[in-house]
C-alpha cells in the first residue's frame, strides 16, 4: 500500500488513504443494496403467495396493464443504465464534459420513465383500478382478488418510482460535483457508487415488468 504524502482534499479524516475510503464506500453501497433486496423481497414474496392462490385474478389484472407503456419503460430504463455505465467510464477516464453529458442523459431518461409511469397511473385511476371502495373490475367474480393484484401493483411500482426519484436527486448531486470539480480521475467513487444504486433500481424493474405486465398475456 503506497503512502500518500500529501493527503487529497477528498480524503475523510477517519481513513488512512483514498483506496481504503473507496473500498469502504463501495462496500457500504453494496450492503445498502442488500437491504433493498430484502425490502423489495417482502413484496415479491407477497406477490408470489397470492399469485399462487389466485392465478386467474392475477392474469386478468395483468391484462389491464398498458403493455406498450411497460415495454417502453423497460427500454428507457435499460438505456439509462447504459448511459450511467458510460458516465462511470467517463469519470474513470477523467472526461468531465462527457461525464456531465451522460449524467444529464441518464436523468432525462429517468424523467421519461416517470412521465410514462404517471400517465399509466392516470389511466388506471380513470378506469377505477385503484383499490378501495371505488374499485371496479370485470369480470365481477374476480373483483375481490384482483384488488390484491392492484394493491401490489401500486405499492411495487410506487416504491420503485420513489427509488427513481431518490436516484434523480442523487444524480443531481453528482452533476453538481462533476461541474464544480469535486469528481476527478482519482476520486470518482461517488459516481461509481451512485451508478450501483441506479442499476439496482433498473434490476427491480426488470423483474416487475414480466410479473405485472406479462403473466396473463397468452390467455
Amino acid at each position, binding site marked *: 500500500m503506497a503512502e500518500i504524502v500529501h493527503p487529497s482534499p477528498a480524503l475523510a479524516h477517519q481513513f488512512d488513504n483514498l483506496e481504503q475510503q473507496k473500498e469502504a464506500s463501495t462496500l457500504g453501497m453494496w450492503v445498502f443494496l*442488500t437491504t433493498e433486496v430484502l425490502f423489495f423481497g417482502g413484496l415479491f414474496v407477497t406477490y408470489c403467495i397470492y399469485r399462487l392462490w389466485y392465478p386467474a385474478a392475477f392474469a386478468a389484472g395483468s391484462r389491464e396493464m398498458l403493455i406498450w407503456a411497460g415495454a417502453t419503460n423497460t427500454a428507457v430504463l435499460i438505456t439509462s443504465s447504459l448511459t450511467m455505465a458510460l458516465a462511470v467510464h467517463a469519470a474513470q477516464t477523467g472526461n468531465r464534459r462527457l461525464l456531465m453529458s451522460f449524467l444529464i442523459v441518464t436523468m432525462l431518461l429517468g424523467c421519461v420513465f416517470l412521465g410514462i409511469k404517471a400517465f399509466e397511473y392516470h389511466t388506471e385511476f380513470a378506469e377505477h383500478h385503484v383499490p378501495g371502495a371505488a374499485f371496479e373490475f370485470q369480470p365481477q367474480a374476480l373483483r375481490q382478488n384482483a384488488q390484491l393484484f392492484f394493491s401490489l401493483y401500486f405499492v411495487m411500482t410506487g416504491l420503485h418510482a420513489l427509488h427513481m426519484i431518490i436516484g434523480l436527486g442523487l444524480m443531481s448531486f453528482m452533476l453538481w460535483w462533476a461541474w464544480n470539480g469535486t469528481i476527478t480521475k482519482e476520486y470518482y467513487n461517488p459516481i461509481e457508487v451512485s451508478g450501483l444504486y441506479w442499476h439496482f433500481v433498473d434490476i427491480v424493474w426488470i423483474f416487475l415488468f414480466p410479473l405485472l405486465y406479462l403473466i396473463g398475456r397468452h390467455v
Partner: protein
Amino acid sequence: MSEHIVPTRTYYTIFAILMLCTGLTVAIAFVNLGAMNIVAALAIAAFKATIVVLFFMHVKYSTRLTWAVVVGSLFWLGILLALTLGDYLTRGWIT
C-alpha cells in the same frame, strides 16, 4: 478490483443483449406455453439482472467480498421465500 476500466464496447454489447431480451420476453408472453410462460419470463428477467450485475455493476471484476454480499442477499431472499412457501404449499396436505 474496481480500478479495472471496462471498455465501452462491452457496455454496448450488454445493452444490445438486454434490449433483445426485452423484445424476446414480450414476444414469448403472447405465445401460450401454459405454466412455462411464467418460467420463461422469470428466466429471461434473471438472465438480464445477472448481466447487469456482472457488467454494468462491475461485479465480474470485483473482490470476493462483493460476490459474497451479492450471493448473501439472494440467499436471504431465498430463505424468506422458501420457508414461507414451505408453509403455503403444504397447507392442503392434510384435510
